[in-house]
């Protein structure tokens, strides 16, 4: 199957912005590698998870936050373009929601891609906004539905880990299936699936 130009472009923009989000996210996390549940949490209060990471208080969150929010914008805009394009071209209906579409994904692939696109990324955006005091002043339900601002931060961290896990699995699968052919197909739009009938 051949990926459309929109899917290929948004794939790589999302990939680049996701790497930047993870990198800057780690910089932000290391200023306070403790996670809490509820509205509040700080040194001196019980934590939910004490991550075995160093606490780095040398001003790494300044650039971390600037980069995080710039990449978040790139990621969201690229994601919106992908979603709209995917709906118009029936990419989701044909390749993710049913068997035997042009891409011919396995059940595991279809479930994973659907979860990443429709559950994990939306959850990242939701929990991200739930940490913004300005956004929650307009939409308080964004944070109250999650049980509080610190709960949102904890979910943001957990879902980020799931997405990193997906990225690792995704790259391993691409490597196993033929790295240069699949990466080439995702860049140039060639055929990544070689079928018996085509050869």
């Amino acid at each position, binding site marked *: 199957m051949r990926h459309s130009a929109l899917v290929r472009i948004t794939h790589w923009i999302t990939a680049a912005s996701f790497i930047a989000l993870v990198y800057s996210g780690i910089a932000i996390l290391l200023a306070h590698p403790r996670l809490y549940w509820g509205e509040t*949490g700080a040194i001196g*209060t019980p934590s939910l998870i004490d991550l075995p990471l160093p606490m780095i208080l040398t001003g790494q969150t300044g650039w971390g936050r600037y980069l995080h929010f710039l990449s978040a914008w790139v990621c969201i805009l690229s994601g919106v373009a992908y979603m709209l394009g995917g709906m118009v071209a029936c990419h989701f209906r044909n390749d993710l929601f049913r068997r035997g579409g042009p891409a011919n994904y396995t059940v595991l692939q279809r479930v994973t891609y659907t979860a990443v696109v429709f559950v994990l990324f939306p959850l990242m955006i939701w929990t991200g906004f739930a940490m*913004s005091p300005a*956004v929650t002043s307009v939409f*308080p339900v964004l944070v109250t539905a999650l049980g509080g*601002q610190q709960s949102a931060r904890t979910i943001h961290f957990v879902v980020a880990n799931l997405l990193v896990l997906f990225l690792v699995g995704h790259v391993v699968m691409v490597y196993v299936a033929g790295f240069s052919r699949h990466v080439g197909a995702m860049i140039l739009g060639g055929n990544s699936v070689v079928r018996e009938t085509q050869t």
Partner: protein
Amino acid sequence: MSRLWTRRKAITTGLTALAGASGLTVAARLADQYGLIPPDHGGIYGIGETLTYASQRLLMSRHSLAREFSPSQISKVAPVNGGMPAAFEYQQLLARKFTDWRLEVDGLVARPSSFSLADVHGFPVSRQITHQACEEGWSFIAEWTGVPLSYVLNLVGVSTRAKYVVFFAFDDSWESLDMADAWHPQTLLAYGMNGGELPTPHGAPVRLRVARQLGYKSLKYLSQITVVDSLKDIGRGLGSISPELGYSWYAGI
């Protein structure tokens, strides 16, 4: 035929580019006029900052209220970042329990004023139990007591040319708010915390409290408030000390 096509294509492309460029110029002008460009808009990170600030000011209410909590939700632990001002002037004021403290209010105002702590205590009292998050990730809920900044701004008579309110502190730190946050009903000049006086490490005698932004916007140890129409001539022109230290000016995220 093919030459005609290329000419037509060239003209169309040229016109589109021209329209795009002038459209962008007009958009930038309008954005600036309506206060949608943050002072730290420069550089690659400025693009993200401008998108965030402009979209929040455009799409969201300027009057939306930060969430308030019940007294039972007040945190037992309210950590502090940063030490007390080392300045001799501040140490002297502290030693005399701020009886000599003055808050200067000047700039684009009809009646430049100087208020004592007793004056500030005499103004209408506002209380809020709000959540304050540090950009590092931790947070607490506290009750703040003070006078709405809007009351003081009305008292001194703010000029229609005003675009920002700048705050100076005894520790040489400084911040600024746009008029949306300056006039916001939850923006306080706070002198009390959790039912008592504002503890010294929390910014005594008076600190700023900005409920819709991260903790670092709530400047401690206030000494002066200046109303301006431009931030260009203050510090490095980035709007507050935060961008000079690498942190964004707008912290509503």
